């Protein structure tokens, strides 16, 4: 059976997750840790405990600013920034609804602009984004009105052109993306994650989750640590 941890491991950016030693340098370095549902260190522990639903429906990775401070400081080369992008990708592709942040809407408007023009048309992207979050905006009418002068300022300083730039190779780009999806589809079919044994983690109790987390750790990192030089398999060494 291929669990959530394995799925994360094969997504670009998730490769190094087993190297984590839970030191917390990432959380300590993160400018947004305080705003996240689960800060970076905890998210890594939760992935290793197989908590798919809790991780992919959380707002944590969507608060990542891509400042790469955690990546630069991590003593184990885990690259938590890339991991956050991998989690965002998985959540977006598996259709998880994320509450408490409009960053996914922003990103969708941005990518939509690339797909229709080949380049980002910032004014169009912003309009599309604000239209997509109208219900949210209605809750904060004062804050919403305050956005207007900002847009006008950028516009009057020639920084929000009305006209979008469409590249000549726009069709080429769409064809490339379509072909890539096709090529990847073949590739993914061969290595489809098996979720048949998947149980909703929310229904499990804490002790079960802890036991699973320990098991995952022992299988991966724990196993490596125990194979230190001098401690041969079959030779219990100091533990004997």
């Amino acid at each position, binding site marked *: 059976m291929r669990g959530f941890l394995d799925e994360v491991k094969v997504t670009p950016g998730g490769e190094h997750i087993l190297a984590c030693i839970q030191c917390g340098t990432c959380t300590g370095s993160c400018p947004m840790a305080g705003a996240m549902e689960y800060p970076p260190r905890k998210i890594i522990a939760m992935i290793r405990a197989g908590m798919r639903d809790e991780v992919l429906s959380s707002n944590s990775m969507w608060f990542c600013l891509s400042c790469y*401070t955690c990546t630069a400081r991590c003593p184990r080369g885990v690259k938590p920034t890339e991991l956050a992008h991998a989690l965002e*990708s998985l959540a977006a592709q598996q259709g998880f609804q994320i509450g408490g942040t*409009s960053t996914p*809407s922003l*990103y969708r408007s941005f990518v939509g602009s690339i797909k229709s023009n080949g*380049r980002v048309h910032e004014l169009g992207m912003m309009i599309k984004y604000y239209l997509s979050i109208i219900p949210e905006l209605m809750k904060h009418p004062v804050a919403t009105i305050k956005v207007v002068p900002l847009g006008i300022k950028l516009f009057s300083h020639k920084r929000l052109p009305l006209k979008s730039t469409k590249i000549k190779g726009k069709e*080429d780009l769409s064809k490339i993306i379509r072909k890539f999806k096709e090529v990847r589809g073949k590739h993914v079919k061969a290595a489809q994650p098996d979720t048949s044994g998947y149980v909703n983690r929310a229904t499990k109790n804490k002790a079960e989750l802890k036991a699973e987390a320990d098991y995952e750790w022992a299988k991966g990192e724990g196993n490596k640590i125990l194979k230190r030089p001098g401690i041969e398999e079959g030779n219990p060494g100091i533990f004997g």
Partner: protein
Amino acid sequence: MKLYSYFPGCSAESTGLGLGLSVQAIAEPLDMELVEIEDWNCCGSTPYGSLDEEESIVVAARNLALAEKRGFDLVTPCSSCFVTLAGANGYLQEHPKMLAQVNEALAVAGLEYQGSLRVRHLVDVLVNDITPEFIADKVRNRLDGLRVAPYYGCQLVRPQYGLDDTEFPRTLDRLVECLGAEAVDFPLKARCCGGSLTLSEEGNVLGLMYKLLKSAAENGAQCLVTPCPLCQTNLDAYQSRVNASFKTDYKLPVLFITQLIGLALGIEAESLGMNTNIVSPRVVLDYIKNRVIT
């Protein structure tokens, strides 16, 4: 004349217009020929990778393939384009299987990427190819006494490229100093400004900008310089929002490093897009005018 394949990035044509204009303006006096990659597409930036990490690599790869044909290093002045293109490039160079898949897709447009390209940030080129010494020779208006806070932001120095230190970088400081200006002590020079989340999480990131402006002001800076169009837009356009939220009165102009270099080289303010700056850069312009007169 040094030749480069130039990738301006989408911002250089809109929110970061001042960057696009000033890079073009300083290229010739500094002996750089920036040949724009024909019909380049958006690099994908962080959002694309966040929605589909693998697909974002293929979107970036079209640019890499277009640039590789020419054979020069790809140079971009935008930190976000840099981190995205350099990241995709590194991934493709290290993952031959992915490169094969990407090439299968690129082939439908008659393109191929072999993985030989070098992706570089303009600051890297200015410091290591053009060199601060050469720039200093070309300076016509020395900016002696002007106190500048060099703001690196994140993606110019992180993750680790070997270009500069990830916590206390020095490259921008050297560029500022070669113009005669003083690079003030700025401990937060590589801290995050909030990136693109100013649009979706303004309440959570205004505080980050406030800390940066406070640190620059307390260290006596008369202006900030940055190479990144997103950092510039945040600190420039949102400065009034910071002032409103934190009951402050900052009026710190935020210039692109290329604008400051251009002013020192004696290039007209308008050609450098100084009229696109929202917090008036008058302090800096007056400084130069007074120095020329006296």
